[in-house]
């Protein structure tokens, strides 16, 4: 069965460092992969979408990579700030007509 795995343990980093979050998938061939941010008591907020033919996508301090051979996406936040502290969810989708399937999320804590 399809499996999407994100590190369930919280990631603690120091302000100014680069945070790297991992999304691994098995028995799955996504054509797209989306990343969302979720703050406590709030709904997820869309951050980035990457297509299977794109190796990398950037938006300001955010960078996403997509390796279909390793079946993995990495989400990087450079020059991290305490305001980046949140849970980050990955959501692959096999093709345009299908729904997103969300991973369990990784909680990021950026300490001043």
């Amino acid at each position, binding site marked *: 069965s399809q499996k999407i795995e994100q590190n369930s343990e919280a990631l603690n980093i120091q302000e100014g460092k680069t945070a790297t979050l991992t999304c691994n998938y098995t028995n799955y061939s996504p054509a797209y992969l989306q990343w969302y941010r979720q703050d406590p008591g709030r709904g997820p907020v*869309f951050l980035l979408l990457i297509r299977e033919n794109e190796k990398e996508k950037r938006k300001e301090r955010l960078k996403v990579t997509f390796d279909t051979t390793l079946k993995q996406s990495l989400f990087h936040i450079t020059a991290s700030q305490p305001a980046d502290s949140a849970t980050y969810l990955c959501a692959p989708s096999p093709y345009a007509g299908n*729904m997103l399937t969300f991973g*369990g999320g990784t909680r990021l804590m950026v300490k001043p």
Partner: protein
Amino acid sequence: DTAVSQTPKYLVTQMGNDKSIKCEQNLGHDTMYWYKQDSKKFLKIMFSYNNKELIINETVPNRFSPKSPDKAHLNLHINSLELGDSAVYFCASSPRIGGNQPQHFGDGTRLSIL
């Protein structure tokens, strides 16, 4: 202006009751969704509507009945509430149906069954 709004934000009720959650989006999107986020924080799709038509109905008990009176609204009615229904329910919308469409979420309805 709130893009996707859900009411109520909190819902506390007894087992066996019937309740409804309302959702409205002002983004002009064609597609709307209901998700359930359990205590382990997994976000699971329940239903998807595209232009008022049901597209996706995951393995959800038939006690859950969505209704879309128009493209901007998707309500969720739950009959005979059970303890296991306690969760946060999120409404979302996207411009069109598809995995390449960013989804906009409401802030959730926290349902607690006593």
